[in-house]
C-alpha cells in the first residue's frame, strides 16, 4: 500500500518531542496542588511531555496515514465482517444529549436513552428468535463469558452441579474455550467431519450427564451452513445440556434463519461485525447476549424494561449472575446499531445477508480457478481457501500471499484460522463491496499465485511498498520492548 508520507520518514514517539512549558491553554493556570492536599499525598513528578496542539495533530495525522482501515481499501478479513461503517451512525452517537448523558442520570431523565436500548433489544429479539437480550456485555467474548456464567448458575439452581463439560467444535474461535475455562468448565473439542461440519454421531459420543453447554456457530467458521443444526441442538437438549450460538457469523442469515428456531438457548452478537459499529483498531465492540424465556431471570443487571409507557433500568433481575461491567452498556454503540437497523428495516437486513452470501460465493467460484478451496460447495458469507498445494510446489505460504496482497493495496484475509485447514485463508467480502472491487481483488490474487509459480522470491520478499517490511516477531517476543522510558 503506498502511503502519502514518504517511506523514509521516521516516526518518532510523542515522548521524543515537546518542551516543558510548551503547553496548550485548555485550562486556566491552576493553583499549587499543595494548597489543597498534604504533600505526602502528591506525586513528585509527572514525566509526560508538553506538545503544541499542532505537533500533536501532525503526529496523529501521520499515524493515521500509516493505518489501513475499511475506508482505505477492501478488507476481506474472514470472521470479522468488515463492512462499511455508515457515518450517520457516528453523527447520531455524537448528539450531545446522547453523548453527554451520565450513566447515573435518573431513569425519568434518560427516557430517550432507555427507549433506544429497548428498541434495539426488541429488534434483535425478533431478528434472532430470542426472548430477551442483555445489552450489557462489552464484546463477543464478554458475552460468551456471561452466557457460560448463566449456564453455570442455571444448572446450580437445578442441583445439577455435575455438569462441567463444554463441547466446542475444533473449528471454533479461540474465545469459546477460553471463556469456558474462565468458568471452571472443562473443554471437549469435537472433530469436524469430512464435510467440515459438526458430526451428530461424534457429538453424541461426548454427550452425557456431565454435559453443560455445546457452543457452536452457524454458518461455521468455514462459512458452511450446519444443515444438521436442529438435530445437534435436540441431542444436546436430550442430554440435559444447553446450546450456545456464537453470533460472529450472524451476517450470513438475517431474515433467512434464526438461532432461536435452530434450538439455541443462548447467543451473542458482535455489533461491531454485523451491525456496522466501527472496529476502531480493535474495539470498543459491543456484544449483546440473547436468551430464551427460561434463562431470562439469570441475565446480567441491569435489564431495560418497559413499564407502562416509560422505560426503566431494572436492577432486580431475580437470579441474575450480576453485572459484567461498571455501567449499563456500550451505549454509544447501541445508538449506532439502532441507526443501522433504522436504515434497513427487516427487508433491508434480509437483503444484507443475501448479498453478503452472493459476494462470498462469487469470489469463491472465481478464486477456486487458481487456489484450492477445500470445501467446494455453496458457502455462506465467507469461505476458506488453502495455499497448501502452492506451498508444496513453490514454498509460498498463506502468510506470503497475505503480505503480497498488502503491496497491492488490499488488507489480507484471515490466515491460519480455522486450525483444521492447512495454510488457510478465510475470505469474507461482506455485502458493501461492489462487483468491480471483487473482480479487481480476484485479479490481484491470481497475479500473486501466478507470480509465486514463476518467481516465488518476489512473493516471499513482500511487502516492499509499505512503511516497514516484515518485522522480527521473534525478537519482539524474546526481548519485549513494550514502552518508552524517560532518560534518567
Amino acid at each position, binding site marked *: 500500500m503506498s502511503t502519502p508520507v514518504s517511506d523514509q520518514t521516521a*516516526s518518532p514517539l510523542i515522548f521524543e518531542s515537546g518542551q516543558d512549558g510548551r*503547553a*496548550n491553554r485548555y485550562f486556566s493556570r*491552576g493553583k499549587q*496542588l499543595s494548597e489543597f*492536599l498534604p504533600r505526602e*499525598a502528591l506525586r513528585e513528578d*509527572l514525566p*509526560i511531555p*508538553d506538545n503544541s496542539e499542532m505537533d500533536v495533530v501532525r503526529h*496523529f495525522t501521520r499515524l493515521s496515514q*500509516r*493505518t489501513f*482501515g*475499511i475506508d482505505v481499501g477492501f478488507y476481506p478479513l474472514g470472521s470479522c465482517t468488515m463492512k462499511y461503517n455508515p457515518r450517520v451512525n457516528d453523527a447520531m452517537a455524537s448528539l450531545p*444529549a446522547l453523548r453527554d448523558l*451520565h450513566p*447515573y*442520570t435518573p431513569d425519568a431523565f434518560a427516557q430517550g436513552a432507555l427507549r433506544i436500548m429497548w*428498541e434495539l433489544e426488541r429488534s434483535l429479539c*425478533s431478528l434472532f428468535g430470542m426472548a430477551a437480550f442483555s445489552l450489557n456485555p462489552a464484546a*463477543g*467474548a464478554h458475552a460468551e463469558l456471561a452466557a457460560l456464567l448463566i449456564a453455570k448458575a442455571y444448572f446450580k439452581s437445578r442441583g445439577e452441579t455435575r455438569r462441567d463439560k463444554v463441547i466446542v467444535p475444533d473449528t471454533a*474461535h*479461540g474465545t469459546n*474455550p*477460553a471463556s469456558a475455562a474462565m*468458568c471452571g468448565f472443562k473443554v471437549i473439542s469435537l472433530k469436524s467431519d469430512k464435510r467440515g461440519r459438526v458430526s451428530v454421531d461424534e457429538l453424541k459420543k461426548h454427550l452425557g450427564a456431565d454435559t453443560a453447554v455445546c457452543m457452536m456457530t452457524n454458518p461455521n467458521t468455514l462459512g458452511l451452513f450446519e*444443515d444438521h443444526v*436442529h438435530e445437534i441442538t435436540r441431542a444436546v437438549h436430550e442430554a440435559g445440556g444447553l446450546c450456545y450460538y456464537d453470533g460472529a457469523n450472524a451476517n450470513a442469515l438475517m*431474515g*433467512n*434463519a434464526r438461532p432461536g*428456531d435452530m434450538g439455541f438457548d443462548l447467543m451473542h452478537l458482535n455489533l461491531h461485525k454485523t451491525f456496522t459499529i466501527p472496529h476502531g483498531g480493535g*474495539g470498543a465492540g459491543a456484544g449483546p447476549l440473547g436468551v430464551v424465556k427460561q434463562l431470562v431471570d439469570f441475565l446480567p443487571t441491569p435489564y431495560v424494561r418497559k413499564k407502562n409507557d416509560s422505560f426503566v433500568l431494572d436492577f432486580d433481575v431475580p437470579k441474575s449472575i450480576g453485572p*459484567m*461491567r*461498571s455501567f*449499563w452498556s*456500550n451505549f*454509544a454503540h447501541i445508538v449506532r446499531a439502532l*441507526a443501522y437497523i433504522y436504515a434497513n428495516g427487516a427487508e433491508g*437486513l434480509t437483503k444484507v*445477508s*443475501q448479498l453478503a*452470501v*452472493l459476494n462470498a460465493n*462469487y469470489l469463491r467460484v472465481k478464486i477456486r480457478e487458481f487456489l484450492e478451496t477445500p470445501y467446494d460447495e455453496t458457502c455462506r458469507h465467507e469461505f476458506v481457501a488453502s495455499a497448501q498445494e502452492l506451498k508444496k510446489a513453490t514454498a509460498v505460504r498463506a502468510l506470503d500471499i497475505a503480505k503480497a496482497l498488502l503491496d497491492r493495496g488490499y488488507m489480507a484475509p484471515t490466515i491460519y484460522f480455522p486450525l483444521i485447514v492447512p495454510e488457510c485463508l478465510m475470505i469474507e467480502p461482506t*455485502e*458493501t463491496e*461492489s462487483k468491480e472491487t471483487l473482480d479487481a481483488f480476484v485479479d490481484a490474487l491470481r497475479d500473486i499465485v501466478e507470480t509465486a509459480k514463476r518467481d516465488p522470491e518476489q512473493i516471499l520478499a513482500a*511487502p516492499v511498498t509499505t*512503511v516497514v517490511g516484515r*518485522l522480527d516477531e521473534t*525478537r*519482539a*517476543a524474546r526481548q*519485549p520492548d*513494550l514502552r*518508552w522510558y524517560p532518560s534518567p
Partner: protein
Amino acid sequence: MYTPHTERDIAQMLQAVGVDSLDALLRVPDAVKLRERLDVVPALPETEIVRRFEELARMNAGASCVSFLGAGSYRHYAPPAITALAMRGEFLTAYTPYQAEVSQGYLQAIYEWQTYICLLTGMDIANASVYDGATALAEAAIMAINANGRQKILVSRAVHPNYRAVLKTYCDGLDVAIEELPIAEDGTTDLRELARLAASKEYACVALQSPNFFGVIDTPGAAEQAASKASGTVLVAVVAEALSLGALQAPSQWGAEIVAGEAQSFGVPMAYGGPYVGFIASTKEHLRRIPGRLAGKTVDSNGKEGYVLTLQAREQHIRRERATSNICTNQAHCALIATMYLALVGKTGLRDVAAANLERTRELAEAVDAIDGCSLHFTAPHFNEIVVCVHQPAKHALAKLEQRGILGGVDLGRYYPEYANCILMAATEMTTTQDIQLLTKALHEVVHVHARV
C-alpha cells in the same frame, strides 16, 4: 441501505456462481426455516433517521440539567482536536493490527498509550486496554490468583460498588471467595486488620481504590505495604478517576504491584455508561500473566524500527482454554482517544486540570457545608468528590433537587445502608460557580433551614 449492487450486477454474479436466484444460495432445512414475520424498527431514509434520533435525544432531560454526578463516570473537557483526529477514517475503521506492516500507525499509538499508563502509574508494563475499570479489577485479581495460587481475594468496601459486583460475578465463575475490608470513620479503608489477614497467606491480593468511591485519598501506610509484601499478597491499586493521577502519588509509590483503572476521564464521553476504557499495568514480574494485547517495538529485515502485537501466545486465539483471559476485542479506539488527550494536555495541562478539579470541589464543599442541615461526612483529604450528609434520606433530597432541574449526585443509600442520608457529589473543571450557587440555593430550600451568612 449500503449495498452497491445493481440488478445487472446481481444477475451477472448469479450466473457466474451458477444459480438462478439468491434464494438458491440461502436454502435451509425445513426444520429451521424462518416462518414468523420479523418485527424490527421500520426502514427510514436518512433524513428521517436523523429526525428520529433528535427526537429521542430530546427525551433525555438529564443532559441539560446542572449535574454533580460522578461515581466512576466524569464530566471533563475534551479538546475538539481529539474528535478531529480520532474520527479519521483510518483510525475508525481499522481492525486489530494483525498485519503489522499496514498498521504501524495504530500499533505505535498503542505503544504510546502503554507508555502513558506506565508513566502515570509508575508501573513497568501496561496492556493495550480492557473493557473498563471494573473488568480491569477482575482481570487483576485473576493475575494475582495465577501468581500465588490462592483462592481468596480481599477488597476494600470503599472500592466502587459496581466494580466489586463485577469482581464477584467473575469470582463466582472461578469459585474464588471475596472478603471485604471495612470503612473507617474518616472515609478511608480501615486497615487495622490487614497485617493479620495478610499474614494468613490465604489471600491472593488486596485491592484498594484511591481516590476511593467517596473521593477520599485512601492508600496504605508503610507498615501495611510491608505486611502485604512479606506475605506475598499482591497489592492491587484501583483507579476510577484517572485524572487524579495528574496530582496524586503514583500507585507504585505506595507499593502497588498491579494497577487496574478506568481512563474515561481522558477525553472519553460519558455516553450513558460506555464504551469506556480500562487499563491494567503491573511490575515486570507479572508480564506473563497480563491479559489482552500488547504492542511491542522491534525491527524489520532492513533494521528499520517498527511495532507488532507481541507475546500473543498468552492470548485466546493461540492458547484457547489455557489462555490467561478470554479477551479478544479491547477498547482500542477509546484508548486512542485517551492517548490523544494526554498528548494534547501534557504535564502542564494535566496538573492545571487536576488543580481546577480540586479548586471547584473545595468551593462546592465549602458552599454545601455552610448550609444549615448539610454537613460533610468524611474528614480525610479528597480529590474531586465529597460525601454530603443531608440529615434525611438522600433519595428524597435528590428527588426534590430533580424537580428543580438539578442532578445533585448519587444516593449512597443505594449501596451503603449506613450512609442512606448521604449524597456523593462531584465537581470538575466543568463545574461553574453558577452551578454551585444553583445547587446551594436549591439544597437550602430542600433541607428547610436558613443558611448561615
